[in-house]
């Protein structure tokens, strides 16, 4: 019986020191794939390696032997003794393995649930497996189902809709205010990881120009170079407020950098064109009352955190829906796997009857002389319909048994009743 097995480690089971030993890059992937294929008992295999996980998906006739050889291989490959390696690995079989790959593909098993990169990585892994011809009937279907399910979950749930990082949430807000960010100007005051990340997102949304201001002008010049922007001095901020649309502020100043009165004056000069302040600094750089001015929007770090938190909650709720869809898909796939188990018996049954029919037909026709062609045809049709009708009920019965525990028993009985496992190829019943 075919078993689907997953052996792997992820960000939850293994620390990065371990995971980094299993990074497969372009230069060694061919060797690794060949090594795996050389392992006895493995029929199909697929290797997924990202920065957060490493796993092997395989099908085998002998589950336990295959598991042992794979773990042995991994130990040799990484130079980590088996005893040390085993506690960091998870091993899933059959429907658990199916569920696992479905969840990975749909980004339910990711560190940030709903992040979009994983699906592409799974697709790459599958492509590599195809190139090495290590994927066949079962894995092909499993992977296609994984992709289809991931896509369905993306479109039918909101799992990936809302941003869960502060910088990204800020840029999404900017889009809700300005629509298209193309042609907009942004001003970055101060420096800091989140502020710079937000600036990067803005640039990837094709804003027109980025101005950079800093207390130390040299630092401003350096950042401006990095973002291909323009450096301005801190005294120019007031004047530049009339020009820019988005201000990201992240200074270490203990006094507000942007005052309500200042913004009020600016808005008159701007003819009320909207202005969006993203204040990531603690203590805050922008006076809170600025938010009261018409067409001015101010979000400080806590506001953004609030959005991110509620988005994470939303994703978790959506994940419940997604898990239900995964359950459904797992059930369907296991059913298909079971039909796969019935197929060889049915085929053997049909083959056997067809052989008997051919032999008997030959005998009879050779002893019956003087039949016209159309009469010969009639005799042939007669034998054909008799075998078909006799086989009809047993085949239907076996197919219906596909999702029952009793399936194996009936398969066994059928094989014995019709003597399907004996090797006499002359097919002459004795």
């Amino acid at each position, binding site marked *: 019986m075919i078993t689907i097995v997953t052996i792997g480690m992820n960000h939850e089971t293994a620390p990065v020191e371990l995971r980094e030993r299993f990074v497969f890059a372009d230069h060694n992937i061919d060797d690794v794939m060949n090594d795996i294929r050389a392992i006895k008992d493995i029929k199909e295999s697929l290797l997924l390696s990202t920065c957060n996980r490493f796993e092997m998906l395989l099908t085998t006739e002998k589950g336990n032997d295959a598991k042992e050889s794979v773990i042995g291989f991994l130990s040799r490959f990484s130079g980590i003794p088996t005893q040390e390696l085993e506690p960091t690995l998870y091993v899933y079989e059959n429907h658990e393995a199916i569920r696992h790959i479905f969840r990975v593909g749909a980004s339910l098993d990711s560190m940030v649930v709903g992040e979009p990169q994983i699906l592409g990585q799974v697709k790459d892994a599958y492509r590599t497996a195809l190139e090495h011809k290590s994927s066949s009937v079962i894995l092909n279907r499993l992977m296609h189902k994984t992709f289809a399910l991931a896509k369905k979950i993306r479109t039918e749930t909101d799992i990936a809709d809302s941003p869960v990082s502060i910088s990204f949430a800020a840029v999404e807000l900017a889009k809700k205010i*300005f629509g298209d960010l193309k042609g907009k100007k942004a001003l970055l005051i101060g420096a800091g990881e989140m502020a710079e990340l937000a600036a990067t997102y803005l640039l990837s949304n094709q804003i027109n120009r980025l101005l950079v201001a800093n207390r130390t002008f040299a630092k401003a010049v350096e950042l401006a170079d990095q973002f291909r922007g323009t450096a301005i001095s801190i005294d120019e901020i007031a004047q530049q407020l009339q020009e820019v649309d988005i201000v990201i502020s992240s200074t270490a100043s203990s006094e507000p950098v942007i005052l309500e009165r200042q913004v009020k004056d600016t808005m008159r000069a*701007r*003819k*009320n064109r909207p202005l969006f302040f993203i204040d990531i600094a603690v203590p805050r750089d922008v006076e809170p009352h600025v*938010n009261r001015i*018409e067409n001015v*929007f101010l979000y400080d770090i806590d506001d953004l955190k609030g959005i991110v938190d*509620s988005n994470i909650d939303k994703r978790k709720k959506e994940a419940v829906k997604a898990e239900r869809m995964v359950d459904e898909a797992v059930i369907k796939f296991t059913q298909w796997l079971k039909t796969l188990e019935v197929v060889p018996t049915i085929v053997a049954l049909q083959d056997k009857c067809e052989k008997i029919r051919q032999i008997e037909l030959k005998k009879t026709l050779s002893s019956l002389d003087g039949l016209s062609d159309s009469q010969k045809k009639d005799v042939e049709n007669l034998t054909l319909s008799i075998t078909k009708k006799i086989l009809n009920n047993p085949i239907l019965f076996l197919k219906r048994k596909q999702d029952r525990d009793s399936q194996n028993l009936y398969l066994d009985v059928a094989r014995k009743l019709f003597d399907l496992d004996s090797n006499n190829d002359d097919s002459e019943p004795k």
Partner: protein
Amino acid sequence: MGFIINSMYLAFAYHKLGAIPALNFKASLSFFAWTIIAAYLLFQLKFRIMVLGSFAVPFSAFLMLISSTMPISTIAMRPVFKSLWLPLHVIAALLGDAIFAIACIAGVMYLIQERQIKTKRLGAFYSRLPSLNILDSINYYAISYGFLLLTIGMITGSIVAQGAHGSYWRWDPKEVWSMITWLCYAVLLHQRMAIGWRGRRSALMSIGCFLVLIFTFVGVNFLMEGYHSFESLRGGSSL
């Protein structure tokens, strides 16, 4: 689809009457519903905002419903109805009204969205509503074109009046209220273009203006006497 069928019906009615099918209140309501959908479709072409429809369609359906509950009345045809200026007057005025309705809808959507962003409570509508900037431009376009059509409607109206009554302006309540509506929108447009009103204030005022417009369209007919009111049209006494 419904729009096409309704258009066909209106064309047929126009043919049968030999005049624009908006002579009584029932017909003009249904005609108004048609122009709102027409205006929505035009804005859909430009801005591709489906969610506008989820406001415009129920509004239009509501008008149709009111229209269909009203008794059918036939109107005595008068030569003045056959004039080419009358359909032009009705179409310009009603299409203008419809576009103002779109401006009002965009204004309401703007206020909802702006409130959500300002108060930092991103509710259920947040992801469905378009950006503030797009809503504001819809509002702006709608007011500009609506104003143009309303102006045309009033000029052609006075030409019709000249043909029917011999004078361009008779201080009829409908005329007066149309003028007030026109002035409201003129002020709004001026504030937008010259002073740089945007966003919230403009949205609020376009809603206010639309309320005045609704009063001109509905209220005046019921509350005040005048030859524009449809009842007197039927009697034909004041014509």
